[in-house]
């Protein structure tokens, strides 16, 4: 089996693609402010609806509903684990860091200390056609935060 392909589809990604942490939109229990975003990749039809709840300047919960490839679904799952409990500015900084790695065409290796399981997506940056898949949930979270701000 090819090492390139295994670098792209690391076991951690395949596991998250199946487990899908955060899948299933949570009903809002009234605590905090809800922001929601729907993102669609028209090229492949991958889509996600992500709901973020912000309370006291922190991300209280993330839940989502989506359909798509292993990369996009695993990315949403990893993001859920990574982000819940962080302050808003920390979330935004992590999204920026992740985006920078994704756009690096393989030049940047993600720091596992910073990005946790999301570091497993470093290999995606070598496949420009798949960067959008990895970014889908992250863009949705970014927009959800903006929506919660208004």
């Amino acid at each position, binding site marked *: *089996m090819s090492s390139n392909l295994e670098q792209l*589809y690391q076991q951690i990604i395949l596991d998250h693609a199946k487990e899908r942490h955060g899948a299933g939109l949570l009903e809002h229990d009234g605590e905090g402010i809800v922001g929601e975003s729907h993102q669609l990749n028209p090229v492949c*039809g*991958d889509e996600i609806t992500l709901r973020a709840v912000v309370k006291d300047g922190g991300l209280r919960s993330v839940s989502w509903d989506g359909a798509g490839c292993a990369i996009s679904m695993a990315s949403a799952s990893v993001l859920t684990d990574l982000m819940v409990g962080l302050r808003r500015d920390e979330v935004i900084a992590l999204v920026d860091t992740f985006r920078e790695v994704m756009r690096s065409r393989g030049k940047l290796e993600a720091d596992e200390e910073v990005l946790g399981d999301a570091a497993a997506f470093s290999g995606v940056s070598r496949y420009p056609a798949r960067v959008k898949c990895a970014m889908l949930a992250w863009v949705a979270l970014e927009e959800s935060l903006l929506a919660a701000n208004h």
Partner: protein
Amino acid sequence: MTLASTLPSLPGTEGPLTNAEVLRIRNDFPILGTVVNGKPLVYLDSGATSQNPSSVLEAEQEFYEQRNAAVHRGAHHLAVEATDAYEDARTAVAGFIGARAGELVWTSNATEAINLLAYSMSNASAGRGGEAARRFALAPGDRIVVTEMEHHANLIPWQELASRTGAELRFIPVGDDGALRLEEAAALLTPATRVLAFTHASNVLGTINPVHELVRLARNVGALTVLDACQSVPHLPIDVKALDVDFLAFSGHKMLGPTGIGALYGRAELLNAMPPFLTGGSMITTVSMERAEYLPSPNRFEAGTQRISQAIALGAAANYLAETGMHRIEAWEAALGERLVQGLSGIEGIRVLGPAAGTGRIGLASFDVDGVHAHDVGQFLDDRGIAVRVGHHCAQPLHRRLGLAATTRASAYLYNTTDEVDYFLEAVSGVRSFFGVR
């Protein structure tokens, strides 16, 4: 029509291409020697775009090196040479589909060809073109009929035309077997129907539609027929007179030609009665500050400087296909297609879309892999050097009808071998275990 088809039956000029011939054909296509991820390229995406033989690449280069000039204007040597080559290409491509040169309008691609028609009808609906163009005018109460298996290129231009004119858009549904529900077509094609636009062969299902039956139904109610032949002109022998359609659109890049060139065939009396779509230079007779008179077809639809090198290269592509023999190509691809469909159907967890193997279908197979998204299937195959198409193939309504968001499509052409198909099938059989689905 073609040299090959008028020859007496010599050995090797009938029946499908042989393996030895396909190997020789492959040598004509420089790109087929490409290595991808350390593996020989297996190109199974000709349904999206085909590759070019050297004769096509050389025709384009030779034009730029020896004849480059604007056509239909200027009296100098190069202008004459360029115009001759450009019009010879039109004759070659028109002849390839059984049409006359005057019945073939160059466009950028099939999408533009269909839009040209829809916008011309839109202009007729606004009163342009006078009495002669009234048969193209639509109004509330009129009906346009398409099918549920259309590529977006043969759907959205009609949606837009319906919106602009107030006509209603209806569609012939697709059955579970991947064929059109003809029994519903008859009821849909009421006397209010002015246009029936449908695909000759589905780019997703591979289904070859019953053109004669549909044309007969349309004729009965006086509707114009528009055939999307993108997936048939490159792969099947086509004679527009035998098909008896009013219009037919196809793209050059799917039939060994370059990108940026396609064509709209139309019956001469229809084209000459249609108001123009794009206007400007090269399509007029006399122009005043207030108004203009237009040339007859095809020039009336070819405003501005044309895609000259592309047209010439497409002429070379049509000649290459004609010399190889479209009946032989059709038979070879039917065999490859059957191998694809049968092989895929035998793999656990694979659902092949469209009609069963051996029934009227072109040499492609779209499929769903249970538990693995099409994008991931495509990535897995790319790692093995195999190029396929993934996604909704510009046919979202059809995918919705099938209950799928995205599928994987392998599409064969004259240069694909049975070994390549077998290599592809073996790769597909490893997809689900790689992604841990079983």
